[in-house]
Structure formats: C-alpha cells, structure tokens
C-alpha cells in the first residue's frame, strides 16, 4: 500500500484534512504522516520534517505527497534531498483537500502511485465539471463500453445519494475488479473507479444511475454496484 504524506503550513489544517479523508477510507487506511508547521509552533513548513514523514510511511509501493501552498511545495521538493528511503516519492500537484481525500481513499483501495496521483490530480477537472451546466461537462465524460457490455439501471435510495463516502466505497469495491465501468447520470458519464468523477455527478437520492461495464469481470462489476446502491451503501436506517 502506498504511503501518504500531508504537508501544510498549519498542523490543524493537515490534521483536519486527514480526519476527513479517514472518514472515507474504510477499515484499512494507508500509512499517513503529517509534516505541518515549522520550528516551535511556527506557521510554515520544514523540509526536514517532510523528509522524516516520507521515511516514516515509506514502503516499496511508494509515497505520495500532498502540499498546501507556497513554501510547502519548496519544502517538499527540498525534502527529496534529505530522504533516506529509496522508494519512489511523488509530489502531487493535486489541490490540497481533494488530493488528500482521493489519495487516502485510493491508497486504501490498493491503488498504485500512478493511479492515486492521477486521480487526485484530476480533482479540479471533476469539480469544475460539476459547476458547469449539465451536458456541457466534457472532461470527466468517457465514451463508455460498447453495446454488448453488461448494464443496469440502479436507483439511489439512501438519503444523501452518491456523496463522498459511498463514492469512496464504490471505488474501493471495484479496485480489484477487472472491468471498465461507467456510471451515467443524465447526460454525464464517469468512470466508476474515479472517486472525483463519481462525486462530480452530484447524484442525490432518487437519481437513477445507468451502469455499464465491459471486460472479464463486467458482470461482477455491475452486480456489485447494483447491490451497493440497493443497500443504500450501508447508510439506510434500521
């Protein structure tokens, strides 16, 4: 499992971002280390602390580093000079909160360094798409599998719909499933393996999602999603 390092000027900001991410990461979160603040209670960043944090969570799968702004980026890049571990370390250009959430969730689901970074870095695309009028959003849209694929229409029955936690659960459940899975709401389609993509659908309670899958495990993928939605992603009362 890849390790996650969170670099911020503010320990409070970093801890809160990690707490938010952990709410969505399920029972087996990745190793996470925070490097926030500098000196004694100084707002800022410290490259030595960042290096220590990287070494703390280093594993052969690599370490993905999320930074807030300004000197956080400089300190993280300088930290690469001080790191003792030889594992691959990637500094993610993802926006801070979205990046930490996506990185932690994807890491927990067993994603590789490349996958987790790609997903986290795409967070602004998904967010911007969500703010555009329906049908205009292009960036998160995919062509989807061909007509012979497995497909189903599923209705969101839980009160909050496909918000962050269920979206994370879907991504985790499908992580090991060998299939391309597309979820559509209205005219928008996204990959069911993309946390930010699923969240960008803004699919609330009562929304009918069209699920299509192709590949060796296509049937499993569709059935998994159908069952999760039918059970309200474990969020139904009683």
């Amino acid at each position, binding site marked *: 499992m890849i390790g996650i390092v969170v670099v911020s*000027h503010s320990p409070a900001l970093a801890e809160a971002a990690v707490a938010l991410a952990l709410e969505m990461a399920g029972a087996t979160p990745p190793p996470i280390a925070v490097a926030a*603040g*500098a*000196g004694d209670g*100084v*707002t*800022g*960043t*410290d*490259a*030595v*602390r960042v290096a220590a944090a990287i070494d703390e969570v280093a594993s052969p799968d690599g370490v993905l580093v999320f930074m807030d702004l*300004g*000197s956080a980026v*400089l*300190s993280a*890049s*300088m930290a690469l000079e001080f790191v003792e571990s030889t594992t691959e370390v990637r500094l993610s250009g993802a926006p801070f909160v979205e990046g930490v959430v996506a990185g932690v969730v994807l890491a927990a689901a067993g994603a590789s360094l490349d996958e987790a970074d790609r997903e986290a870095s795409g967070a602004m695309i998904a967010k911007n798409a969500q703010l555009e009028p329906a049908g205009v959003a292009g960036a998160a849209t995919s062509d989807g599998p061909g007509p012979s694929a497995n497909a189903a229409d599923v209705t969101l029955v839980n009160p909050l719909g496909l918000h962050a936690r269920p979206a994370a659960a879907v991504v985790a459940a499908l992580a090991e499933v060998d299939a391309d899975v597309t979820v559509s709401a209205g005219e928008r389609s996204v990959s069911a393996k993309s946390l930010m993509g699923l969240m960008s659908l803004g699919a609330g309670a009562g929304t009918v999602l069209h699920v299509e899958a192709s590949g060796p495990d296509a049937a499993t993928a569709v059935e998994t999603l159908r069952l999760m939605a039918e059970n309200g992603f474990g969020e139904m009362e009683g």
Partner: protein
Amino acid sequence: MTVPTETVSLDQLVDWLARFRTLVTANQEYLTELDSAIGDADHGANMARGMNAVAEKLATPDAVDSLFKTVGMTLVSSVGGASGPLYGTFFLRIGTSAGPVTTLDAGALSAGLRAGLAGVVARGKAEPGDKTMVDAMAPALDALDAGLAAGEDLASATEAAFTAAQAGRDDTEDLVARKGRASYLGERSAGHIDPGATSTVYLFEALAGALGGLQE
C-alpha cells in the same frame, strides 16, 4: 592583471553570517513592512528567527562545508516560509561547492556563491525579472566576478557586489511578481520593493563588511 591570492578564513565566514544576522534583525520591521505590501508579512520575523537559530549553532566550525551545512539545515528547519528552503539551499550549495576546506580563495568563494545562486534558481524556478531574491543576487555575483577578473581585492569586489545587489533590489520596485505569494497580486505587485531581494542586499552588505570592505 594579478590573480588575487587572498583567502577567506572560517572566522571571516562566521563573521559574514553574524553580520547578516545583525542586519536582518535590525531591519526585521522593515522587511516585514515590505512583505506586508505584497506577501504575507512574515519575511522579517522568519529571517530573524532563522538567523538567530543559526547563531546558536556557529560555535567552532571545523570546515567550510560543515559550517554551511549547519547553516542551511538550521534555516530549513526554523524559518517556516519560502525563504527557509531558498536561503537553506543557497548555503547548502556553498558548502557542497567548497568541500571540507578551512579557507576559500577568491575563486572558490565565487564558485560557492554561484552554486548557491544556481540552487536558489533550481529550487524556486525564478528567473531574473520575476521580482525575487534572484534579482539582487544575480547582479551581485556578476559584479563580484567582474571585480575579481579586473584584479580587485575581495574587499573591493564584494563592495561592488553589494552595490549591484542594491541596484537590483531597487529595480524590483517596478517589476510585476511572477513567483511566490506576491505573484497572486499580479499587476498590483508593481510599485513595491521585493522583500527577498532586500534581505539578499543584507547578505552582500554583510559579506563586504566581513571581508574588509565598507570601511569609512
């Protein structure tokens, strides 16, 4: 043309750092005032805190590389803002360039400072004209090298570097910031002197003072 045979001792290098600390702490309020116009109003406090931390660790260095490694790492861990990794990289690169020696001749000093500048540029990705410390440091090193090439002694050449750094700092007033926090302000960053270029002037004022220049 004579090749300067002067050398810079460890004591003089420590004096350089002590003078830099004095200038930074004496001008802490001014640096912060400059930074409050276009940055986050912490440059004075950050540099003073960093150099005060450095001063506590300067006891008796045994070599140029270990001296500047200590300085660089201390700044990295105590400054907090962007000037931590930037000045930290500057001093670390000087140490790496110099190696485990106890004196620097003029050429080695120049090479060390050049390595420091290259480190700052690589770290911050700033180019001349971006309204950063590079705008004071690059002309200062050009003036230093020009002076040495013309056969000047270190006192004169570092005085020339100080003068060039001041001119470079003054020129940042009209520039639009393209790096750092000030770049968020875009055109509104023009009309203000860059705080990082200003602290870099102190760096060269301190160097000239430590090497015998700036005598009235």
